[in-house]
């Protein structure tokens, strides 16, 4: 198994883990953490792509993704906080006011 294949497998595993977390966890902070794991899996894939193609572009994009992910985390945590203020037991499945 080459180094690339190991990284690729790690990426897939991380992504699956994150997706499962998003779908199964009910605590908003845990959901956010799971989303971050998915983002990091994607980031790892980007860096791997850069390495395979021998370009620096992959690393540059990965850095940009990190910054955007940080901004996204701020908004997400703000939402989670607002949710905690709104209801004592924060649960993403109980929050469904926009249903049709």
């Amino acid at each position: 198994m080459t180094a690339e294949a190991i990284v690729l497998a790690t990426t897939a595993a991380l992504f699956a883990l994150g997706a499962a977390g998003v779908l199964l966890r009910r605590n908003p902070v845990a959901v956010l953490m799971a989303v971050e794991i998915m983002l990091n899996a994607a980031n790892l894939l980007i860096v791997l792509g850069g390495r395979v193609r021998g370009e620096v572009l992959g690393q540059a994009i990965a850095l940009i993704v990190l910054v955007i992910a940080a901004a996204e985390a701020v908004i997400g945590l703000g939402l989670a906080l607002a949710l905690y203020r709104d209801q004592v037991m924060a649960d993403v499945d109980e929050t469904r006011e926009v249903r049709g």
Partner: protein
Amino acid sequence: MSALLPWTWVLTLPGLVLTAAGVGRRPGIASIWGPLVMLLAALAWFATGAVPGDVVIPNWAPFLPDGSLHLRADALAALMLAILGFVSFFVYVYSLSYMEGDPGQRRFFCYLDFFVAAMALLVLGGTLGVLLVGWAGVGLASFLLISFWRDRPGTLRAGLDALAANMLGDAALLLAAVIVPSGCGDLTTLGTPRCTAGLGGAALLAWLLLIAAAAKSAQGPLYFWIPTAMAGPTPVSALIHAATMVAAGVYLLVRTHAVLELAPGVMLVTAWLGTLTMLGGGIVSLFQRNFKRGLAYSTISQLGYMFAAAGLAAPFASIFHLFTHAFFKALLFLAAGVAIHATGGEEDLARLGGLRRRLPVSFGTFLVGALALIGFPATSGGFSKDAIIDAGLRENPLIGYLLLAGALVTGLYIGRLLFGVYFGPERTHPHHEPALQVWPLVPLAIMAVVAGYFEWPGGGLSRALTPVLGAIEPLRAFSATGLAAAVLGLAGIGLSWPIVQSAPGATPAEVGTGWADALGQAGYSLSRGLAGLQTGLLTRYALASLLGVAVILLLAARL
């Protein structure tokens, strides 16, 4: 001039900034010069030889396959800019008086400036991408202006109706821009075989363009937003929902008529859609209690004529009717606005009446507009409607005769409004007509009469438009069909007199409510069922999008 014309869309932006910043004692004065300069630039462009000019700034939107900012000044764009400049200049002047004393006056002029800029960008767009920016911009401006009186009940709902219909059109146009192969975003080459080789071929592209145009121009089932849009101020109804923005759909069909001609099936649908909307809109107008809604259905009906012409391989007749209609329909709305303003906001036909003595200018100009609308010989509408009916009889006689019959309906509904509002007993006590509201009516009335002479007898308009639209058949003015249409229109006006007499004010007859209710009920249950999909459960949505991505990946792997 060909270098300046592509940039006329920025003309109202300084006014927008100044008005928003609160400069000037009277809002609106700062921006009023933009449309005037736009009109003069367009006229000067025609006068200095009408040389097409392109401005291309490459890589303006790098995420699009053809992401250059491409502005194109040709005869069609210049004509649309001239119409926009002319009508919006007089609407600005009119609004100075109409909106005087309104607390949101400054906001009103900011929105209006934004609309003019977006509309100009729409007609100047050289690629589908740039056109789409203007296309979405006028939709947004329309929403903002319909919901302008936020504290009145129903205005927000009316604005959202308009936004929903417009978004549907935006989505169709966006899809059209996506399926065109890269390198083909240019509107002039859209009909070439290389550009229609994308997914679905020319037929799908034509369908998407037709849906986009029908949403913008309120054709067929997408008519619903224009009558509710009348909740906005009357100058807005005149400029946006009669003269310019709703005509953007017709403009799109004319601009891309090469694609339409590659798909004969879509052409036929366009022609029938226009014809049926023309008849339906006219008939529904007969049952309106609200003055402005009566005119709104008239706009839908006249846009139907333009769609029919576009579907009958007569793009010039279509754009010619757009040109004449812009003047006489803006005139009708502004004259109606004088009556509404003078009676303190009264729009109910049952409570209006006998206004011709107190409001003589409003009455006179409304009469001129009505005559142009029914296609009275030698007025602008006479020439353009003649051209459309001629094209109908030539290409598809059944549609031609229906278009001819539409003239009778036109006469009926406009006669009903004319007699209902300006004749009969006085039911209100109008105050006088403000000078600033009256004098913009005069140039519009003059144009409503003489606009046809830009084409007949010299053929100036068709000569200028030939490079864009291809060969154009010469206009047969004062033909037998045209005279028949005018006679039918006058007969309609005559017949409407006893109707108005027998039923004072409006005739709110409840016609066909049975099947309309059933249709509405069916639509409601359908949407109730669809609404069940919207569970509000975040995890359910996440699962759906994950599965969607998986399906796309599997499909991509197989290809």
